């Protein structure tokens, strides 16, 4: 039996059952089980590639497999964190410890499963129309989760997120229309297939419409990725969402939207417009990098800092893919590592928030003594995300920088290095005092639990492993993905 | 051909006041009353013409000019209106500008005679009257220009003569928008609801009524008759837009009469179903008319 079918149907059915089921404990077990089943099926896909279904509309290629695996792993970790979080809060009449109203437990679990469903769908779609529907669905599924805490700030963040992303995705739809128009022959009236491989192979009568379509698609889906200047929703949404959701948003959702743009870029590369799209990728990448830099310095909110760091890394990804050649390889490695590290960091941040009760970094001090486990994770995560060896990000950024220098793009390399350095300094200003600083700030509540530490630890270890040792199956899939995207190892 | 135009011209001169009667009758019908007889306006005009003339000592000759220039301007304007394919009595390229400025002249002298009375109330009314006409005039002109662009000629008779089925099929949207603008201008220039309430007796709510408040006797008769002529003028703007086939003058007059009746009914229904807009909303109303006429113009380019 084709395993894609249960992969897609399981979250949907579980979500429905959880909504109907009155027993909360059973609901939680079902939730965790679905996550586990999803992860297991994806694990099987590494050994045996599934056949495409729906006439090739849903197909898992190597790039999709990479991103799907990240999504599945992060979801599993987030599901553990979510159930942990739900266990520690009194959910009497949907209020948490501080008495604030939160989203009901059933709805939280059900909507998270719908989010998983829509993300899976977006990874598998080979049809631009279906991809559009899936991405819009991810926006809608994640919005209620951002306003999990019914708080003015989170409601504000949700509104910005919903409106900006929906408008962006609407623009991407215009891009879809332009794309099909540019491929149609005038007066033929035949249906245009929006399948990626059909679009790549078709003849192309209209040049300007084709390029215009890319701009619309890039800006549209770029809004979802968080590339500057379309990033305005990201710091708010990622910082106001609860920790388990932030890790998913930064680690999985951004990748999913990026996958769409990458698949679209293969169409353009096949039609010979690679120079055009590379310029656009690099331009937005650099702007995102600089924007993140500006806002990360003197940032006082540690979750917002992590959000801006996501913008920075998405910018580096865009830069890497825009450089082409070996830069694609570097960017793919960067994608893998960033998701793992950012997921771990957000989960740790969630622990800190739960125990200290504040998101402002100046109020969190001397974690080294009070929360030793979390402080270890926090510092390790900081080093990992700012690309210290031997974590994987070091190698990926190294490859990207090397490609930039080799292709003679001196200005790009200078900006890249400067930005990364300044970001490192700026982040250090925030991270280090939290762990080491002794001036008394708030006292943490309870002690940290081992379970809340284990999950981020796992992710960080994986990222460390990716830096040191690259298993052969993984290398094979990565190579296939790089070639699919037109790069080189 | 001129004899046909003359016949229709006199037909309109004769039956214009009937429009006022129909409007009043329609409003009465909606209000549940029986209303004045249809020919009441004629009796009113005749009664007024036979009255004694009384003028205030503060007024000068300017006061006399108002009603008379209005009537003269309207008579001249009506001579330039074609009806369907029947050309007007007077037509030459650019006559549509002359028509709009004849109306402007009429308005100028009306305002002049009103301000001649020296009352501050008339001053307030004059400023209102001029403000709303100021907004209505560009709408009218732009609509006419859009119409001229459709037919490619600048003479009213030729413009309306070229409005046949093919032009309608091609330029449907633009022509409908032009008709819409004409309707709004009709309501504005003839002081109908929603722009102005002709039956109001509260001075602070009057716009056009202020101008005629101090006239009496034969002058008022002339003004009433001119009001009917103006209504007929604007109605013909609208009804002549329809693609009429070329007809003989008797049938043409009949169709003219019928369309006047229909417009009167329409105005009566609008008056009965809406309330008067507050003054600043009237500004928005007329500004939207200007913008709709601009859209019609854009569509015609």
């Amino acid at each position, binding site marked *: 039996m084709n395993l894609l079918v249960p992969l897609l149907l399981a979250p949907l059915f579980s979500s429905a059952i959880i909504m109907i089921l009155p027993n909360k404990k059973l609901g939680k077990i079902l939730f965790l089980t679905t996550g586990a089943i999803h992860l297991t099926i994806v694990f099987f896909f590494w050994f045996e590639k599934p056949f495409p279904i729906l006439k090739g509309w849903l197909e898992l290629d190597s790039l999709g497999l990479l991103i799907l695996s990240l999504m599945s792993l992060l979801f599993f970790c987030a599901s553990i964190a979510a159930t942990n979080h739900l266990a520690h809060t009194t959910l009497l009449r949907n209020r948490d410890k501080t008495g604030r109203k939160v989203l009901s437990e059933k709805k939280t679990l059900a909507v998270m499963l719908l989010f998983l469903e829509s993300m899976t769908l977006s990874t598998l779609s080979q049809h631009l*129309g*279906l991809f*559009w*529907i899936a991405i*819009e*669905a991810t*926006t*809608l599924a994640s*919005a*209620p989760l951002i*306003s999990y805490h*019914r*708080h*003015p*700030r989170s*409601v*504000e*963040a*949700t*509104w*910005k997120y*919903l*409106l900006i992303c*929906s*408008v962006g995705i*609407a623009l991407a*739809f*215009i891009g879809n*229309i332009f794309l*099909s*128009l540019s491929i*149609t022959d*005038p*007066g033929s*009236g*035949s*249906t*245009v297939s929006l399948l990626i491989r059909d679009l790549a192979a078709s003849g192309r009568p209209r040049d300007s*419409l084709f390029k215009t379509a890319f701009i619309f698609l890039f800006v549209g889906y770029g809004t979802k990725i968080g590339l500057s200047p379309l990033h305005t929703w990201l*710091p*708010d949404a990622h*910082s*106001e969402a609860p920790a388990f959701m932030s890790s998913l948003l930064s680690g999985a959702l951004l990748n999913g939207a990026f996958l769409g743009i990458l698949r679209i870029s293969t169409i353009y590369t096949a039609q010979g417009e690679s120079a055009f799209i590379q310029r656009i990728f690099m331009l937005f990448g650099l702007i995102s990098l600089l924007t993140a830099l500006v*806002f990360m310095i003197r*940032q006082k909110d540690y979750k*917002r800092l992590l959000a801006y760091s996501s913008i920075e890394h998405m910018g580096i990804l865009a830069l890497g893919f825009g450089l082409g050649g070996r830069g694609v390889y570097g960017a793919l490695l960067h994608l893998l590592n960033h998701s793992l590290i950012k997921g771990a960091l957000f989960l740790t941040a969630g622990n800190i928030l739960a125990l200290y009760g504040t998101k402002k970094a100046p109020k969190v001090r001397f974690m080294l003594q009070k929360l030793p486990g979390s402080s270890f994770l926090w510092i390790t995560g900081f080093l990992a995300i700012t690309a210290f060896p031997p974590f994987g990000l070091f190698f990926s950024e190294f490859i990207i920088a090397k490609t930039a220098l080799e292709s003679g793009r001196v200005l790009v390399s200078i900006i890249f290095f400067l930005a990364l350095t300044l970001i490192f300094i700026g982040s250090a200003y925030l991270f280090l005092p939290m762990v080491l600083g002794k001036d008394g700030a708030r006292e943490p509540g309870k002690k940290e639990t081992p379970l809340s530490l284990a999950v981020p630890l796992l992710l960080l270890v994986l990222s460390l492993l990716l830096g040191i040792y690259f298993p052969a199956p993984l290398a094979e899939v990565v190579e296939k993905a790089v070639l699919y995207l037109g790069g080189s190892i | 051909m001129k004899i046909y135009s003359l016949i229709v011209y006199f037909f309109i001169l004769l039956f214009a006041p009937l429009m006022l009667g129909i409007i009043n009758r329609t409003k009465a019908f909606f209000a549940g009353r029986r209303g004045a007889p249809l020919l009441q306006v004629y009796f009113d005009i005749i009664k007024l013409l036979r009255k004694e003339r009384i003028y205030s000592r503060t007024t000068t000759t300017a006061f006399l000019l108002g009603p008379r220039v209005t009537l003269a301007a309207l008579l001249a304007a009506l001579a330039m209106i074609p009806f369907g394919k029947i050309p007007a009595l007077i037509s030459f390229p650019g006559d549509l500008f002359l028509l709009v400025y004849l109306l402007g002249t009429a308005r100028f002298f009306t305002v002049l005679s009103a301000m001649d009375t020296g009352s501050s109330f008339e001053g307030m009314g004059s400023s209102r009257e001029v403000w709303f006409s100021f907004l209505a005039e560009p709408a009218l002109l732009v609509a006419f220009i859009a119409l001229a662009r459709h037919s490619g000629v600048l003479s009213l008779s030729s413009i309306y003569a070229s409005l046949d089925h093919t032009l309608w*099929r091609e330029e*449907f*949207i633009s022509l*409908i*928008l032009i008709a819409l603008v004409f309707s709004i201008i009709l309501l504005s220039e003839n002081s109908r609801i929603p722009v102005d309430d002709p039956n109001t007796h509260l001075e602070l709510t009057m716009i056009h009524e202020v101008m005629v408040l101090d006239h009496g006797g034969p002058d008022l008769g002339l003004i009433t008759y001119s009001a009917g002529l103006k209504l007929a003028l604007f109605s013909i703007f609208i009804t002549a837009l329809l693609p009429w086939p070329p007809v003989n003058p008797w049938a043409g007059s009949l169709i003219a009469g019928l369309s006047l009746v229909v417009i009167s009914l329409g105005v009566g229904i609008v008056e009965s179903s809406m309330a008067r807009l507050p003054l600043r909303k009237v500004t*928005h109303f007329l*500004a*939207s008319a200007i*913008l*709709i006429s*601009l*859209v019609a113009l*854009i569509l015609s*380019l």
Partner: protein
Amino acid sequence: MYFSIEILILFILLSDLLLLASSRILLCIRTLALQGILLSLLPFLIEKEDLELHRLLLGLLALILRGIVFPLMIKRTVLKVGVKREVEPFIGFTASLFLGVLAFVGCFILDDKLALPISADHRFLLPVAFFTIFTGLFLIITRKKALTQVIGYLVLENGISTFGISTLAKDPWFLEVGILLDLLVGVFIMGIIVFHINNEFDHIDSHQLSMLGDWKKGSITNYLNAEREDK
């Protein structure tokens, strides 16, 4: 039936102008419903042949959703929240209308430049579609009330669908259904969030949703002053 598409385009155009000029939210909702109904009729007027069953059902679904369900959902939120007027938008209503007319010229120029294949009968269809897209974006940007922004979003989607229907020949039907479902859930969630905004803030003025942000007014001056005070 020559005039049917022309009448449709005319009413879509007038509805756009009305949306730009009106401050009454309930009137905007009714105009949105009208646009939805016209839009669902559009595919049948363009292609007069092959009225297959699934096309008919799709049109019916679009009619019900766009013309009845979405406006009703927004109306419900309006009644729950109690905001009936858009009081002070960033760009006033008459100015919006004027800018709209300017944008209308722009839409014609755009249509000219794009030179998309469309039959001469329907030559106003694309400019009006672009104008609807403009109206939707304009409403989202310049209006303060969150509900008007939702209406603007639906108008934007209406415009995009008009654009798609006029230019593309045939679309697989389940894509249309998918898009409509997306919109349905979207409006549903947006309505809920607007209700939450009202609960938390006691208003739905999105301009005042500015608690989050790194760039506050006068922040540079404050920063410089703070530095000076430290010394």
